[in-house]
């Protein structure tokens, strides 16, 4: 048994191990990225599902931004006020109450109210259907296709297809914005949770075409705009839009609307 060979082998492996140990140890210190411990604390408080609703790259992105002072402490829509308060404690500032938002689907044309041009059999995905000439089987080219790309996008199971259109469950919705991005017709908007009046239509067609396609669509008659005491409702391109900064929830627009397309519920 050649002792020299054994010793050389042991030295080579041992030497490699020791060298690599030193190498990594030294460079571990040299390349140490200073992590503010507040960032770790904030990361621990955040919900951790990396939904991107805050507008930053995941929870770690938001934590870094808050510590740098680029983001306010109440930026996380999922965590809401309780998490904002905790982050405020960590950063040593008080958290102002943010407005809770929810997603709202601006289409009311369900199976009973909306017309279909033809019967559709094919890929059951709204994003894929957007490529079909004419934008899908629905007579109203602006309406909800009802195949649930938004449902698939929602990480909180807050959107469901009920009677052919998407409906958001206000209690489950965390306003992360994924459904807004997923809808190929751009039908979903984030509105304040306590907004009492919402226009549930996106159709920019003229009144006659709207009525042919759907029994409840907005016809652009401007009665809401003329009667709003705050000037919060504007009708552009044959569709009404409410500015929630001005809206007081008086409900006049909803009363005057001949199509009853502006909801009254809170």
């Amino acid at each position, binding site marked *: 048994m050649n002792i020299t060979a054994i010793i050389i082998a042991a030295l080579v*492996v041992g030497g490699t*191990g020791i060298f690599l140990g030193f190498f990594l140890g030294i460079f571990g210190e040299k390349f140490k990225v200073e992590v503010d411990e507040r960032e770790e604390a904030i990361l621990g408080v955040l919900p*951790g*599902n*990396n939904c991107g609703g805050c507008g930053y790259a995941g*929870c770690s992105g938001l934590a870094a931004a808050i510590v740098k002072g680029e983001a306010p402490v109440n930026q996380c829509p999922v965590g809401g006020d309780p998490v904002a308060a905790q982050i405020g404690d960590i950063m040593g500032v008080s958290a102002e109450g943010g407005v809770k938002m929810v997603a709202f689907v601006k289409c009311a044309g369900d199976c009973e109210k909306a017309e279909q041009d033809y019967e559709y059999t094919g890929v059951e995905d709204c994003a894929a259907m957007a490529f079909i000439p004419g934008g899908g089987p629905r007579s109203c080219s602006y309406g909800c296709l009802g195949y649930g790309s938004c449902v698939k996008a929602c990480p909180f199971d807050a959107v469901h297809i009920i009677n052919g259109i998407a409906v958001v469950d206000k209690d489950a919705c965390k306003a992360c914005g994924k459904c807004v991005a997923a809808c190929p017709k751009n039908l979903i908007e984030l509105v304040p949770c306590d907004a009492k009046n919402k226009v549930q239509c996106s159709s920019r067609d003229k009144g006659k075409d709207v009525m042919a396609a759907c029994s409840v669509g907005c016809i652009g008659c401007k009665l809401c705009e003329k009667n709003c005491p705050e000037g919060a409702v504007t009708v552009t391109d044959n569709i009404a839009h409410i500015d929630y900064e001005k809206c007081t929830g008086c409900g006049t627009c909803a009363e005057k609307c001949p199509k009853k397309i502006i909801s009254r519920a809170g």
Partner: protein
Amino acid sequence: MNKYVERLYNGIIKENPTFVLMLGMCPTLAVTSSAVNGIGMGLSTTVVLVMSNLLISMFRKVIPNGVRMPAYIVVVASLVTIVQFIMQAYTPALSASLGVYIPLIVVNCIILGRAESYASKNPIAPSIFDGLGMGLGFTIGLTCIGLIRQILGASLGITVFIMAPGAFLVLAFLVAGMNVVRDKMEKKGKPLAAPSGCMTGDCASCSQSAMCTGKLPDAAKKSAEQEAK
């Protein structure tokens, strides 16, 4: 059931690495062009697995936590080198046909995975039987696939099965078949263990779990919970 026999049963049937857990796919696809190759690879992996489980279980209280992974890697790599040279000497034909896949046993997820999840936490005797069970399960898996490919390819003359595309095809149908079995077992109320592996989010069996920065958020939470247990 005697706890040693239970470990064997677990490795061969309940958590069979090839059919149930779907670990170690690289050698499964590469060496199963004939049944003999499959048996050869399976048995050499079994030997390495048993020895590495034995050694790691022996030293489990001595190895410091921070250098756990490099220590396991050195142990496994040394064992593989030994096995490689024994095979070169005593079974040169097999060694030549398995080629570079023998040293690649080092990075076989089964070995480092069992070391991390079982051998480092359990005494010597159960660890040996765990290694034996898993290794035999792997061998059986490889042999079955090797047999199918050899019969269809060499005997029946459908050459595609001996070549690269055939490996993917056979494995695809195997996975589909296992899905049928899975559904049946779930209906009976005896669900099979879920497949593990990179990016399925199952970090428990992954050897690199401790240093991995690539965990998906759910996986990170799950493995944190498991660490706490």
